[in-house]
């Protein structure tokens, strides 16, 4: 009997081919749309997280316990004394790919007619931690540890100031004992990471020069750590925890981004819900039309002794066929587009300059199976739920219509 109900449902959809195809396309496009939205969001967030880890936070860090949260400090008690020793120890751990001390300071760069505030990184220039910057060099050379006056600046900053390689700039940097110190530096190289905010606000100089310049005498703000496996961060952080030292994982260090992600998710859930609702309304409308057109047929079936439950099943089967076909096509379309965008990306350009999270100028989508399945599952479930109404309506209508046939 069930298979006959399915036959009737299927043939009825074929009979109204145009309407069925339209409905099916609506479902497919709706689902493809939210799969694409989701792919872009996932891609953007994952890309931002990856950039932040590569360029700013690393997988883990060790700092002095008193180092202030969310601010820079050059006070001796806030810095790590035995930075080289500690860094060597961390490098010895099997999970660690690279570790290096870093010194952070705020700086102001002057040219004849421009002044720009920056974050100054004193870095161990040979460390693989800075491979991403090395790879991002567009002109000039990377700095070396023994360079006493060289700096690296971002392309965007260079353009803004109208300066190039081997030109000199005046840099003023905060110091441990208070008033900033000023010096003349030579631009050795220019990098472009694609993250416009970063490229505008970051300069590098060798660690030893930075320490001397800021009067911090061999101390470091933090030990930056990159791991072979991102998942080992908790373990490594726990191992390194010792009195006077605080350890952080990439999750701790990207709290801001993570909460932004979570808050953003709530918004997108609403967007998905709206699209799914629209799709469900289209299906419900189609089914109602189909039921209205077939009141006589429903009446005949009721007269033949078909029960309300069976008539409901018949209507629901139409919705299952439309829903399933639409969802499958939607998954294929949406996934294909997301995979395409994960290869080519979307150029977002200047947008990324305004925000201090790691968006590049190109945003890549990301296809996540679990998300695609859950969006499809929800779409299908809501379609079925909505279809209960026309199905129930048909079941109620049928016996009354049976009367009118006689």
């Amino acid at each position, binding site marked *: 009997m069930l298979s006959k109900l399915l036959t009737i449902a299927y043939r009825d959809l074929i009979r109204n081919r145009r309407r069925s195809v339209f409905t099916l396309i609506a479902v497919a496009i709706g689902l493809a749309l939210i799969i694409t939205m989701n792919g872009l969001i996932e891609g953007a967030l994952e890309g931002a997280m990856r950039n932040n880890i590569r360029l700013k936070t690393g997988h883990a860090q060790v700092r002095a316990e008193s180092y202030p949260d969310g601010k820079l400090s050059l006070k001796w008690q806030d810095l790590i004394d035995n930075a080289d020793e500690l860094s060597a120890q961390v490098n010895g751990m099997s999970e660690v790919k690279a570790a290096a001390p870093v010194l952070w300071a705020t700086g102001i760069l002057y040219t004849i007619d421009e002044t720009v505030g920056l974050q100054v990184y004193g870095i161990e220039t040979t460390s693989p931690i800075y491979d991403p910057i090395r790879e991002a060099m567009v002109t000039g050379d990377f700095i070396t540890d023994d360079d006493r006056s060289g700096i690296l600046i971002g392309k965007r900053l260079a353009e803004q100031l109208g300066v190039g390689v081997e030109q000199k700039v005046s840099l003023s940097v905060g110091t441990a004992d208070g008033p900033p110190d000023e010096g003349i530096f030579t631009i050795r190289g220019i990098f472009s990471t694609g993250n416009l905010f970063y490229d505008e606000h970051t300069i590098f100089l060798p660690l030893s020069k930075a320490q001397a310049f800021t009067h911090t005498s061999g101390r470091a703000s933090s030990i930056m750590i990159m791991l072979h496996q991102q998942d080992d961060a908790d373990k490594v952080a726990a191992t390194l925890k010792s009195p006077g030292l605080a350890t952080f994982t990439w999750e701790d260090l990207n709290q801001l981004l993570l909460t932004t992600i979570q808050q953003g998710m709530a918004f997108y859930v609403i967007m998905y819900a709206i699209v799914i609702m629209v799709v469900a309304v289209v299906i419900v409308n189609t089914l109602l039309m189909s039921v209205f057109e077939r009141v006589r047929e429903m009446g005949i079936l009721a007269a*033949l002794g078909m029960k309300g439950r069976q008539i409901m099943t018949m209507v629901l089967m139409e919705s299952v066929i439309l829903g399933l076909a639409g969802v499958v096509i939607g998954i294929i379309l949406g996934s294909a587009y997301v995979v395409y965008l994960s290869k080519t990306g979307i150029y977002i350009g200047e947008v990324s300059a305004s925000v201090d999270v790691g968006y590049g100028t190109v945003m890549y989508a990301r296809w996540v199976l679990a998300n695609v399945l859950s969006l499809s599952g929800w779409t299908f479930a809501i379609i079925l739920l909505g279809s209960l109404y026309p199905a129930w309506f048909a079941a109620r209508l049928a*016996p009354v219509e049976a009367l009118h*046939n006689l």
Partner: protein
Amino acid sequence: MEVIQLENVTKIYKLGEVETRALDDVTLNIKEGEFTTLVGPSGSGKTTMLQMMGCLDKPNSGVVKINGQDVIRLNANKRADMRRDMIGFIFQFFALVPVLTAYENVELPLLLKGVEKKERHERTMEMLNAVGLSDRVHHRPDQLSGGQQQRVAIARALAPEPSLVLADEPTANLDTASGKQAMEVMQKLNEKTETAFIFATHDPRIVAYAKRVVKMQDGRLVND
């Protein structure tokens, strides 16, 4: 043995202030295998009577029994079962399921009844043969003439071997020849089985086939 018994059945329709006694204290028994026509002027209550007999509607008062069972107090599902198991309908408009073939239309009540596959097939073919449509088995309703459609409907009504077939003006939309053919098919089937037939009609040619003629006027039986 009584297939159907109406005892003091009254059906009142209210439309605003106007009350119509479509059936007024009707008592009527139909026996197994009877071939009965229900005649009377338009509005006399023939269709209403068939609706009561067919478990499609409930009277305001009185008792309706099918094979001895009171059907008025049954719930919707039980009444659907009653229609499925006891009653065949033949409608004025050849009410076939448009997306199903002649074969599938006849098979449908057997499927509803849960008849197993082999028997279902035999029974379906037997009925299509009996109405002279064994060469139109896989035609859809829109590929059949009115007379052929009505014969499919007759085959469908008879396929599950109901106790009672209710037909409301089955020939009203057929030409003379098709109407005659349909009536002859039904008469033959009536002779072969125990099934009782009740026709509501104005058509004197149908009345000629009947063994029993029940006359109605203003919701009452006037002549039996």
